[in-house]
């Protein structure tokens, strides 16, 4: 067995052993990361609000997650009177399990050569790839809705209902924002998408920037993070769907939320920032297909480097999540629905059309898939993004006072009696 062959070709017991090792390592890493993300969030919030944050337990407060965990274990489990107990207990599990297992399909480093063959650095490279993630994230809502309903509490119920409507709505935009990626990559497996980005020598954030933006926004909504945290809006709904939860069941909701965040961040990094790809370096452009390695030669140090790249990108998005949470106010519920259905959905559809057209045009012109292809798409995308933000803005921020004056001038010109009455402008309502 030459080391360029994937280890899955071994089959049998060794393969099982490697799989089990991968599962355990990834699971433990995710859990640990999640624990420290809670600490990170508190640090960042403290930093943004100019205060100290946790610094008592352990050096610089590093052991705070451990202490929190311990506290959650020893606290009393409370059950609301007349709550449906079975569903009440099941809800946190339903919330946590999908959140934990979505990470399985995300590749986090380049393949690692071992004496038995190449080990791909992903728990399971499913052929349906990202559809698996979509399927599982669409299940996350059950936990929240069940929690809201079974608590037998009006606020919780409201939170649950908001969650179901919001997540179903934004799932549409999320899925549609992914379609351009599929179209450009011609592939739905995450390893394939990374490889296609490497072949283009350009991350999809450039040719598909608008989709990237929509994806980020939709991810925020799917994770119920500010500015979309209506299911748990504490000022209106006490704590929303988890108002009645305590101790470890409460902690499970938190774990679910943070691991969802982690997965979403990793997904953004993978789909739009090249995953574990190291920019401007050809040495990591490799793809482990069923037939073996394609491209550069794997090496253990490359695996380490690429993992570093992946971790950096993911960390950035995790930070973005937290940054936004502590700086942006919450939407009103009708605004959330308006944004989802009337802005994001049509934009995503239009962008799909635009991307498809660009791909068709470039293909029929015979441009080979590569950097030029990507740059041409980037040019189209920049136009689309400028148009999108310009229209969304409607002179509110970008033109500012000048835009107001221009509207006044137009109105006066029309008042002077031109041949046609003023066209009903789209600015009329501002």
């Amino acid at each position, binding site marked *: 067995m030459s080391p360029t062959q994937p280890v899955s070709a071994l089959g049998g017991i060794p393969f099982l052993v490697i799989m089990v090792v991968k599962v355990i390592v990834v699971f433990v890493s995710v859990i640990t990361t999640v624990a420290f993300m809670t600490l990170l969030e508190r640090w960042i919030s403290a930093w943004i609000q100019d205060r100290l944050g946790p610094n008592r337990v352990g050096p610089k407060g590093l052991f705070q997650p451990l202490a929190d965990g311990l506290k959650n274990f020893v606290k009393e489990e409370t059950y609301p009177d007349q709550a*449906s107990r079975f*569903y009440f207990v099941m809800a946190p599990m339903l919330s946590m399990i999908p959140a934990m297992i979505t990470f399985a399909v995300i590749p986090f480093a380049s393949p690692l050569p071992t004496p038995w063959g190449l080990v791909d650095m992903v728990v399971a490279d*499913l*052929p*349906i790839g990202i*559809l*698996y993630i*979509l*399927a*599982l*994230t*669409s*299940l996350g*809502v*059950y936990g929240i*809705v*069940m929690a*809201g*309903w079974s608590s*037998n509490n009006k606020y919780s*119920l409201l939170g*649950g*209902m908001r969650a*179901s*409507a919001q*997540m*179903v709505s934004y*799932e549409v935009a999320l*899925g549609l924002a992914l379609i351009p990626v*599929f179209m450009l990559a011609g*592939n*739905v497996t995450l390893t394939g998408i990374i490889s296609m980005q490497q072949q283009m020598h350009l991350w999809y954030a450039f040719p598909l920037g608008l989709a990237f933006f929509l994806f980020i926004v939709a991810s925020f909504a799917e994770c119920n993070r500010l500015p979309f945290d209506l299911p748990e809006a504490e000022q209106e709904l006490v704590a929303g769907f988890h108002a009645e939860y305590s101790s470890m069941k409460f902690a499970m909701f938190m774990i679910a939320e943070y691991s969802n965040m982690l997965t979403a961040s990793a997904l953004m990094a993978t789909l739009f920032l090249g995953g574990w790809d190291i920019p401007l370096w050809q040495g990591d452009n490799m793809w482990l297909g069923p037939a073996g390695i394609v491209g550069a030669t794997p090496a253990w140090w490359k695996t380490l480097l690429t993992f570093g790249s992946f971790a950096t990108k993911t960390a950035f998005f995790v930070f973005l999540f937290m940054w936004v949470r502590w700086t942006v106010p919450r939407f009103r519920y009708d605004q959330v629905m308006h944004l989802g259905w009337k802005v994001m959905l049509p934009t995503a559809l239009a962008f799909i059309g635009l991307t498809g057209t660009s791909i068709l045009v470039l293909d029929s012109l015979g441009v080979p898939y590569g950097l030029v292809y990507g740059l041409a798409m980037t040019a189209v995308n920049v136009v689309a993004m400028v148009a999108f933000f310009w229209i969304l803005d409607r002179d509110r921020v970008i033109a500012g006072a000048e835009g107001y004056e221009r509207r006044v001038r137009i109105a006066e010109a029309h008042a002077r009696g031109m041949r046609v009455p003023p066209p009903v402008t789209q600015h009329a309502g501002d």
Partner: protein
Amino acid sequence: MIDIPFFLFVVFAVVAIGGGIGMVSSRNPVASLLFLVVTFFSLAGIYVLLNAQFIAAVQVIVYAGAIMVLFLFVIMLLNLGSDYHADIRRFGWIVAGFVAAGIIGGILSSGLTQPGLLAGGGGGALVDASVRDVGVVGAVAFPLFRDFAVPFEVTSLLLLVAAIGAVLLAKRRV
């Protein structure tokens, strides 16, 4: 050595039937719904065993992720989950239902599995080949967008009509 796919199939089938029974017999609509979701999940598993991974994923996304959430939303919106009363019909109807269901099940199982329908059976190899050639998604996408392009467009119209209809029906004042 036991046949692992077959073993899995049996497990999924049992869970699916159990979910179906649970859905029909639960008094609480929320319980019914969760049983149905369980059934959908096991069906997704069976689809994977039948080498229809894409359909399995779509099954979970559409049925479990969207349609059933919609049901759940409506149940909660109307607050049907908490104060329910018995909604099963009288004994005579139950007997009639069982008889009818039994007859239908019997006819279907014998009709669908008659040897004439399953003869040949080369389709599995075709499916596997196209999955190998164009991938899991491509295997469905190519016929869908080539041979079935017109039906596909018509279904999009159907969805549009349904969406408009739903909005009109559920609006407070028309």
